[in-house]
């Protein structure tokens, strides 16, 4: 907190500095580091996907403009080039933009946590700010929430965050159906006391674990599951420093919110809620929400965010009877039937006897004769051949669907694919034409799927790179259009975390059924890391720490890998703290690892074997942790040397680690380990000498 405010104050930012209190800042997370919109997000950033023919980001920026925000920081993730180009060409960059400042920040972040830590490092935030993801749609005037946030903060500076939540009853199309966030709130103070996500698909986690302390110390508790979490948060700068302190948090809800609430005893920070009853607020968190929110917008629940508001310059939608929105220059055949809740963009033509209802048609689409469109989302420039039926499916830009095809519910046809005549795209199929670098080669067009003369192949998400540390909710395993077959994965696009995430726990069985376990595992890592870290700071002897760790591990039934993760994060945090306190890196490493050597040793179980997976894992974890720290490369070198000297890690393990592709998977990982290269080379040489000695004396190498 200290450095933050100093940093913020020292940074004089022209006109905005004149009225620090007045300027409202906002951070837009344009990438939420999820893959729920694949295969579309293979080609386009998710916030540029059109919702009712307007890119998602427009709604979010519109919301911020409505709220009177003046400084906007936009964090791009995947495809940030496209996004930047779009933003630069948009009205938000023009002179008349309601934002005084719109800063596009690029980062190599792989999670929301990284973004927040990056933001903290940049010292851009001067006061209270709003965090929204780039897919929020809301007509809520924020001042009510802001006023109550400010009033609370004046009364108590530990009230660091206010979450805006929309009440939505028991069943609601816009709520996620597979997981529901549960907020436990003290209604007298609007304070959120506990947060958990319930996964409806898993049988064993249909319960909450509420701390008895919470029940005992509060007169009144609301346990609410009827809220749409639209992820609009009003934060104080303290939030950023909390993110920075908790280096292992990645998601804003499941980890950050849960963690901060859990550690109330430690940090004393409180998080509050602002529950909205009469405005529209929702987030396009997955394709099911995309469908629901499109309907909401067409039915004018989000008024004035309607197609006929014409948010984008150049749009000229007009409202006709029956929620039919039509732009000028639409060609409709005399015998076509246009039903309710339909949007038709400029230049689109619809052929004879076609039936269109509940459908969004982009610009310049060509719909043939006798076509039936029901609940379809057809983006710009798509061509649908005569006699084709499309129900509840998404057809992206410039897709060509031949004549007499059937596109069944839940099918997703991504950009530029081509479907030959008389094909049937079965339920829930995703077809893409995108080049995927992970694939062995460019996958060729699959004629089985798209027919002769078609283009595209079926997109199969990788089941195995789901990352348990990501995903703010398993919500996205929600079903698109209520189809059981079409579950959406929640994996992170982060290559780094997904590659290092095959951490031991076997992830067999369906994704949803392991969800509950993961929660506990994550909590274990977090709890254990906190506990070990506290012990290190208080200079407790290693026996005591070990005892505590073992008991925690027994309770949570954690894997060895989890224990190592906990230990590594605690150790590294302490070391980083010592270094910041003025100690030399080497000395800090020696102090911690010397004193608590036993703890590390007892998390490794491969001393006697040839392959050293545990030690390699430890090194990888260390390396990964150091990626985010200052002078990580130096510290890693000292660590390597120290661990070797202490005989915690054997030479073989170093070699295996160095050769392990995970350790050199990304640029950052390579950079961090660059300094250590000399050490590893020296080790290899030493070993060679040793092995020559070995001829003379077999026992020596064992000792070493």
């Amino acid at each position, binding site marked *: 907190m200290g450095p933050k405010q100093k940093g913020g104050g020292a940074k004089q930012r022209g006109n905005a500095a004149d009225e620090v*209190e*007045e300027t*409202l800042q906002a951070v837009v997370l344009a990438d939420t580091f999820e893959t729920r919109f694949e295969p579309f997000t293979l080609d386009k950033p998710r916030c540029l996907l059109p919702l009712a023919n307007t890119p998602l980001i427009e709604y979010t920026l*519109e919301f911020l*403009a*409505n*709220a*009177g925000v003046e400084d906007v920081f936009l964090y791009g993730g995947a495809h940030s080039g496209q996004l930047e180009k779009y933003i630069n060409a948009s*009205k938000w960059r*023009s*002179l*008349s933009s*309601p934002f005084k400042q719109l800063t596009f920040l690029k980062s190599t972040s792989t999670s929301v946590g990284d973004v927040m830590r990056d933001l903290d490092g940049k010292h851009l935030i001067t006061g209270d700010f709003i965090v929204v993801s780039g897919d929020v749609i809301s*007509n809520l*005037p*924020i*001042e*009510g929430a*802001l*006023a109550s946030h*400010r*009033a609370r903060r*004046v009364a108590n500076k530990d009230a660091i965050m206010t979450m805006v939540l*929309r*009440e*939505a*009853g*028991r*069943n*609601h*199309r*816009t*709520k996620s159906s597979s997981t529901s966030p549960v907020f436990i709130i003290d209604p007298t103070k609007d304070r959120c006391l506990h947060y958990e996500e319930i996964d409806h698909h898993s049988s064993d986690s249909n319960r909450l674990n509420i701390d008895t302390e919470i029940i005992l110390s509060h007169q009144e508790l609301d346990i609410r599951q*009827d809220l749409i979490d639209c992820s609009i948060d009003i934060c104080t700068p303290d939030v950023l420093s909390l993110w920075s302190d908790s280096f292992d948090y990645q998601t804003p809800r499941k980890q950050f919110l849960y963690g901060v609430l859990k550690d109330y005893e430690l940090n004393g920070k409180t998080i509050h809620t602002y529950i909205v*009853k*009469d*405005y*529209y607020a929702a987030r396009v968190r997955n394709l099911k929400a995309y469908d629901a929110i499109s309907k*909401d917008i067409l*039915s*004018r*629940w*989000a*008024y*004035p965010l309607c197609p006929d*508001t*014409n*948010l984008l310059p150049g749009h*000229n939608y*007009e*409202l*006709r*009877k*029956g*929620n039919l929105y039509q732009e000028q220059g639409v060609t409709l055949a005399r015998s076509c039937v246009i039903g*309710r*809740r339909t949007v038709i963009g400029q230049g689109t033509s619809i052929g004879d006897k076609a039936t269109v209802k509940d459908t969004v048609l982009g610009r310049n689409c060509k719909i043939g004769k006798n076509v039936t469109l029901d609940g379809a989302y057809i983006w710009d420039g798509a061509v649908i051949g005569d006699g084709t039926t499309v129900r509840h499916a998404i057809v992206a830009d410039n897709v060509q669907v031949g004549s007499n095809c059937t596109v069944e519910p839940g099918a997703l046809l991504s950009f530029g694919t081509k479907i030959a005549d008389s094909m049937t795209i079965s339920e829930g199929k995703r077809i893409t034409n995108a080049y995927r670098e992970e694939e062995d080669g460019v996958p060729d067009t699959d004629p089985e799927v798209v027919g002769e003369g078609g283009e595209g192949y079926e997109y199969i998400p990788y089941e195995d790179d789901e990352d348990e540390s990501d995903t703010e909710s398993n919500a996205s395993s929600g079903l698109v259009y209520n189809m059981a077959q079409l579950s959406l994965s929640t994996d992170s696009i982060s290559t780094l975390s997904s590659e290092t995430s095959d951490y031991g726990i076997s992830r067999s069985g369906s994704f949803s059924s392991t969800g509950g376990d993961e929660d506990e595992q994550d909590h274990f890592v977090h709890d254990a890391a906190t506990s070990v870290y506290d012990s290190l700071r208080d200079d407790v002897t290693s026996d005591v720490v070990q005892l505590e760790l073992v008991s925690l591990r027994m309770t949570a039934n954690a894997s060895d890998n989890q224990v190592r993760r906990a230990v590594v994060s605690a150790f590294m945090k302490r070391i980083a703290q010592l270094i910041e306190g003025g100690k030399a890196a080497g000395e800090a490493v020696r102090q911690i690892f010397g004193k608590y050597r036993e703890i590390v040793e007892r998390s490794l179980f491969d001393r006697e074997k040839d392959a050293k997976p545990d030690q390699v894992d430890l090194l990888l974890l260390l390396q990964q942790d150091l990626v985010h720290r200052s002078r990580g490369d130096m510290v890693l070198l000292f660590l390597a040397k120290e661990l070797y000297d202490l005989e915690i890690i054997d030479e073989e393990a170093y070699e295996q680690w160095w050769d392990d592709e995970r350790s050199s998977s990304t640029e950052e990982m390579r950079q961090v380990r660059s300094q250590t290269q000399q050490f590893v080379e020296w080790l290899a040489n030493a070993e060679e000498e040793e092995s020559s000695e070995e001829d003379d004396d077999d026992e020596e190498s064992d000792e070493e």
Partner: protein
Amino acid sequence: MPSTSVALTPGLASFLKSLKTNPIDTSIDNLISLLKRRQIRHSRSCATATAYLLLRVISACRTTDAAKLIERVQSVGRRLVAAQPREMVVGNIVRRVLGLIRDEAEDDREADFNLSEAGSESQPQTPRVPDDHSDSLSGRFEGSDRSSSRPPLSQPAPITMFSLLSHPEPEASLPGTPASASPSGKMLGHTPSKDIRAEVLEGVNEIIDELGQVDDQIAAYALDHIHSNEIILTHTSSTTVQKFLLKAAAKRKFTVIHAESYPNNHEATHATVSGNSTGDDEILSTESFQKPLIALGITVILIPDSAVFALMSRVNKVILGTHSVLANGGLVASAGTRVIARAAKVHQTPVVVVSGVYKLSPVYPFDFDSLIEYGDAGKVIGYEDGDLVDQIDVQNPLYDYVPAELIDLYITNLGGHAPSYLYRIVSDHYRKEDINF
């Protein structure tokens, strides 16, 4: 903190504040987005914002040429109207400003004709000296003309054979090609054209003043229409109606039945009736100090909209506010107005509409469905009712179209008019070449 939060949300106040400092194009875009986002709504706010913006546009427009000025105002006006076609007052204000410019240009020319006629008819190419003289003359004529926005009918000088013959010509050539204007156009030179701009600015300022005073002017007619012990029915929280009733309440005792206009305006209506208006509405904010009717000892009965028909038999007079008035006398007014007007017709109760002249639009309603705006469905049915939201389509029209035959009298700031007389006011205020600008 409340002060910061009030200043936070953009609206009319913040727009007017920013108007002075921002470049002109920014202000135009700014108003367009405010209109689109419905952050400026209500006829008066829209009219005020438009008038101030046009004031800026004209004063920033460095041209000396009336035709160029007209073109500029037209292009700005088109963009504003396209942003929110249902706020008809925006178009009205633009048309009035256009009319002002045309009047000025013509007055100038006519004055000039007068002069050349009086001086030497045979010499159109008058030397410089008498031209200066014409300046002062034309200035004087304009000064006298300003008081009414119509072309001077009583002035004897222009009604000569020459001006009658030459009259159609400048009118036709004015909008398009200034160069082809009569020789006097060239002769006018710099100074008089500058004068046009100043005169137009003054005229726009007059429009702005009119917007400020309109309610009081209308209220001045209140005593002619409200009599003691009458029962008056009204609807919505319109400030025009409130001021009208308040004025009458100062002298007479009567009873008001107030329909609450659920769901789009009931909160404001309740606040108006009980006098707790919070000033959230930007137009109300200046008048929020005003005492409610009950403070003056008037009995006000708040009823749900559904009870209107049942009570209509006891009502002596219906007084309605409106969103805009169309050329045929039809109204676009808050939803529920038509039901009230219809019920009044059945009971032969007189229906009086109070409205500023600025709401009177020269648009003829060929397709009145397109004039009606549909609002937030969530006000009718709670969005949290998931099952309903999924199954049904909710329509929440913000406005009703009320046909002219249901209305007996219009009271504007110019006085009371019968529906059949409205065309006359329209033709007085708007030039026919501006109706489809």
